[in-house]
């Protein structure tokens, strides 16, 4: 059976990683393991944007990917971007092994609210399901409560549930069988 590997890129709250490990194992029905942490991604820093290139980060993840049949999810506190967009919550290779999520905009503090570690964990799980879902070939889902729906802001992410919609669940099962 395929495996999902979690890898932190720079410092990440330990509680979040534990929550993700359990939550993703449940969501995908796969074993989830952790790889050795990667250092802070200073190589991906763009001084003009004060953000980190998710493309550069994915290149680093490629180096630690254990094999073609597994999935790797990088988790970072750094705010990520791709050139055309002002930010991304995460990025993934469609039908490929690599994905990454940023926790930067999942913290309540980012929006000038009091910290809420439970909410952070839930958001991190939904975003991780979304990016890993892409690695299994799932595309954006029109069902707003499905983790595979497109969230362009934090409110839309909070509207999602941490359970697949019926359609995405079937597609995921088919992808896992393959």
């Amino acid at each position, binding site marked *: 059976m395929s495996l999902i590997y979690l890898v932190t890129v720079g410092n990440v709250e330990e509680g979040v990683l534990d929550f993700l490990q359990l939550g993703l194992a449940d969501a995908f029905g796969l074993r989830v393991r952790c790889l050795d942490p990667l250092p802070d991604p200073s190589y991906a820093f763009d001084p003009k*944007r004060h953000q980190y*290139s*998710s*493309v550069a980060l994915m290149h680093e993840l490629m180096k630690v990917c254990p094999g073609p049949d597994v999935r790797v999810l990088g988790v970072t506190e750094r705010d990520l*971007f*791709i*050139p*055309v*967009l*002002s*930010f*991304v919550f995460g*990025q*993934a*290779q*469609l039908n490929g092994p690599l994905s990454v999520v940023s926790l930067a905009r999942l913290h309540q503090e980012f929006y000038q609210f009091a910290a809420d570690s439970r909410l952070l964990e839930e958001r991190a799980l939904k975003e991780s399901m979304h990016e890993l879902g*892409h690695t299994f070939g799932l*595309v*954006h889902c029109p069902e707003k409560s499905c983790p595979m729906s*497109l969230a*362009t*802001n934090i409110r839309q992410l909070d509207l999602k549930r941490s359970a697949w919609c019926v359609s995405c669940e079937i597609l995921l099962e088919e992808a896992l069988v393959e």
Partner: protein
Amino acid sequence: MKSHWEILVVDDEEVMRESLAAWLKEDGYRVETAASGREAIEKSRAKDYAIYFVDLKMPGGIDGIETMMQIRKLRRDASIIIITAYATVDTAIAAMKEGAQEYIVKPCNLEEISLLVTRIIKVRTLQRENEMLKKRLRKTYSLNDIISKNPRMQEIFRLIEDVANLRSTVLIQGESGTGKELIARAIHSSSDRADQPFVGVSCAALAETLLESELFGYEKGAFTGAASQKKGKFEQADRGTIFLDEIGDISPKLQMDLLRVLQERSFYRVGGSEEIRVDVRVIAATNVNLQEAVREGRFRDDLFYRLNVINIRIPPLRERLEDIPLLARYFIERLSVEVGKDVEDISEDALQLLLTHSWPGNVRELENSIERALVTSRSRLLTRPDFSFLAKEVEDQDPFSIPAVTLQELEKQAIESAIKRTRGNIKEAAAQLGIERSTLYDKIKKYEIARS
């Protein structure tokens, strides 16, 4: 399904190009990339994309604006989004002027780009649906370029399909310009002879001797100038269909020759002694009343019965007014391309004018009128003034002039006109004609007049 739509991302920077392509793929689209304007133009030549994302600044001689202009030449309706890192009013104006549908400044937020793509795809989907519905509508009302929603024409369409594969002779009767040859071609192309020749002959166009050699061919030396053997139309049409137009005009001798071909399926070339056998489906057409010609002894009754195995009578355009808007729009769509005009539709008042015209030249006259209006039109909509020549023709007509027709034809026309005026009200029509209702019924039956 988003995956029906393909998007082309054009940018010389690999990171920019591939990351946008990856994001669009995650959104469910099929995406291709091009690293230069030149590559983008080549790709667009080979395939139409729903959306083109084009970076404004690209090296190598062809920048974003130039790329967009070239793509637009190839794909008039392409949706092109120009992407730039620098927002200046000048570049924005230049991009929009050259036809960019949108202009985005990177980095833009996810919501903006997602809404933009969704909006364009929505429009493209509607355009495609519209096109599909138009095609479906055209298919419903047309058979091989014959367009009609008139019930009698629809019956003809069904009949064509029913008889297409038979070898039986068909006689098509209808006024000039009603599309008799189109019906004949429809029968041929719906039949199992479709990939064999369809040979048309206008019997009225040639003198008797010429028509004879035209139809049956001739042997070398059969007459002065017959330097070599020539196959006639019947031989050319072997295994296919021969269409004998204006059959009512042929001479008694040719009537006899034709009867022999229809009976024996064989003939002799002019000046020849060898019997030629052919497998030909004969479709004949005429705008004269053949039954009447038989009664008057101008047309052989045995030939008439041989020809009239399957009879198709095409109603004149004035009896299928409901087809005028359909036909007018069909001709606008087809002819506007031919005459190089960007006309899209016809106004309601112009259609009203077309509906009141009597169309003695039938569909052909309507087609010519649309072409004439297109040539002089200066807008994207044909309006009533574009058809002023029709109104003039109506004014020019002397209301008291009597056309050169038989008394019976005149009576038929008077009855048809009264029925039309009273919208099929027989009591009123009889009153207007000054005859009894029962007499009117008899005459309707006699002249085979439609009551609606």
